[in-house]
């Protein structure tokens, strides 16, 4: 039995990390048991920004509930929206026009790059390097500007509607994205010099927060966390959606399963996403960007599940419909929630600083966990 304050009977120190703490990236509250500098136990306490989005969605129509999901994993809000639109399209058997699909994929990959860039900067902050944060934001800003021009918002875009996207791309979109590709390609090597190649970073991350492939699967980890153990898990490859089967890209693997492997998976995913954007940006097919849909959407009675690969891993939407205007029950399977479960397993026996570094490589977004 753990006391909230003080020490355990064995004389170990109990520290509350969070809900306000620089390294928890939000309002995550971890109760850690320390023996000197060594972490013995990590216990997450959740719910500080639990908004019960699942209950909220039960009273929203199938057009309305999509925007709420932007507020879950706000760093890959477009991909969340895409997952929700996919489940509605699956239920109503709407065929999204090619142009709509390509625009969605382009936006999703740009979002993924933006999310990974922010993670990279925050990762640097977690291990004490402050400069990468601003360097990462410079490139992320370019993506946000592109988003702003086409979608009308920078972070919670709500650009996806069932049947396609809300508006056609802005006339400047292709030009700006091409400029961005050039910019990021010139800067991505600086990331290597500034942080990846740095001896201190490598010493800090190698062999830290190790998880084996079996354990990662058992803990339900997804995304870069499980790919760092060499497990195939990319939904874009396993169950391609929105035309991912037509683009060429590699699923990034590492084998070590430690924090550095997770770091490298994300760094290489930036390049892969960039190559997807490069393939598609000059080949956006002509045609409609949105399928014709009824004004009021009613899903038939039944159950529908769709999964997408967000920047953090597998995001699933499970809808049970009774045939009404609103979902009967909706459940979001968020990647961060399962990844957080593995934190204790990864960090027990290591130092406090390792815990912070491991948490950084898990890339937790707290609203995604709390929902």
């Amino acid at each position, binding site marked *: 039995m753990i006391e909230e304050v003080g020490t355990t009977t064995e004389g170990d120190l109990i520290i509350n990390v969070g809900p306000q703490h620089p390294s928890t990236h939000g309002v995550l509250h971890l109760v850690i048991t320390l023996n000197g500098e060594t972490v013995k136990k990590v216990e997450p306490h959740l719910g500080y920004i639990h908004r019960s989005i699942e209950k909220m969605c039960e009273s929203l129509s199938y057009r309305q509930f999509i925007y709420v999901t932007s507020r879950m994993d706000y760093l890959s809000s477009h991909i969340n929206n895409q997952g929700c639109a996919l489940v509605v399209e699956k239920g109503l058997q709407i065929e999204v026009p090619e142009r709509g699909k390509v625009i969605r994929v382009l936006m999703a990959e740009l979002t993924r790059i933006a999310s990974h860039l922010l993670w990279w900067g925050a990762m640097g902050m977690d291990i004490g390097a402050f400069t990468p944060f601003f360097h990462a934001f410079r490139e992320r800003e370019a993506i946000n500007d592109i988003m702003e021009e086409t979608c009308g918002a920078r972070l919670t875009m709500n650009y996806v509607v069932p049947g396609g996207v809300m508006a056609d791309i802005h006339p400047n979109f292709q030009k700006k994205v091409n400029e961005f590709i050039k910019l990021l390609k010139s800067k991505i090597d600086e990331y290597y010099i500034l942080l990846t190649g740095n001896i201190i970073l490598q010493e800090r991350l190698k062999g830290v927060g190790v998880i084996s492939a079996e354990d990662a699967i058992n803990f339900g980890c997804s995304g870069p966390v499980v790919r760092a153990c060499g497990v195939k898990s990319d939904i874009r490859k396993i169950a391609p959606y929105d035309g991912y089967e037509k683009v060429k890209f590699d699923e990034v693997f590492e084998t070590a399963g430690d924090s550095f492997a997770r770091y490298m998976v994300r760094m290489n995913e930036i390049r892969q996403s960039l190559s997807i954007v490069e393939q598609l940006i000059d080949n956006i097919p002509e045609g409609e960007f949105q399928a014709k849909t009824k004004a009021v959407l009613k899903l038939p009675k039944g159950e529908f599940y769709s999964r997408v690969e967000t920047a953090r891993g597998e995001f699933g939407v499970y809808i049970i419909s009774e045939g009404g205007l609103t979902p009967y029950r909706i459940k979001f399977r968020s990647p961060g*929630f399962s990844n957080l*479960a593995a934190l204790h397993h990864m960090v027990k026996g290591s130092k406090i600083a390792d815990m912070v570094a491991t948490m950084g490589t898990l890339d937790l977004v707290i609203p995604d966990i709390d929902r």
Partner: protein
Amino acid sequence: MTKEELKTKLTELVPTATFDEAGEWLNVLIDAKDWLPMAKALRNYFDLQFDYLFNVTAVDWKTYLSVVYHLRSTKLEHVVVVKAKIADRNNPEIETVSNIWRTAELHEREAFDLMGVKFLHHPDLRRLFLTDDWVGYPLRKDYEDPLNMIKL
């Protein structure tokens, strides 16, 4: 494994199971008391190997509850959805699978917190999101909270 093969295999395993093939994946409807042996089999049988439990949730059907498990095999790449029906809505109980799939630990706590399903033999069954003294289970259909719920 295809849907048909899975179906025959699972019928052998749990004779009382019924199937629903409407969706993308095979849905297996079982009773809550059959769940634990079935879960062990799903995890360990050589031709099943469902090692990745990617979603656990509970659904309130007004007269009864059901717990839904989405399982995938990372080696054999097949998916199955198991729905365990819990007839007793007032005191819903089902065996935990957190010792089979570790990810279930947090997911089951969430289901307990929001839907009130008691997972027997769970190592640490407490409220996850809500405060410990919260009354009621918010995701149930008959939950009323005049203060925080705004009817539109």
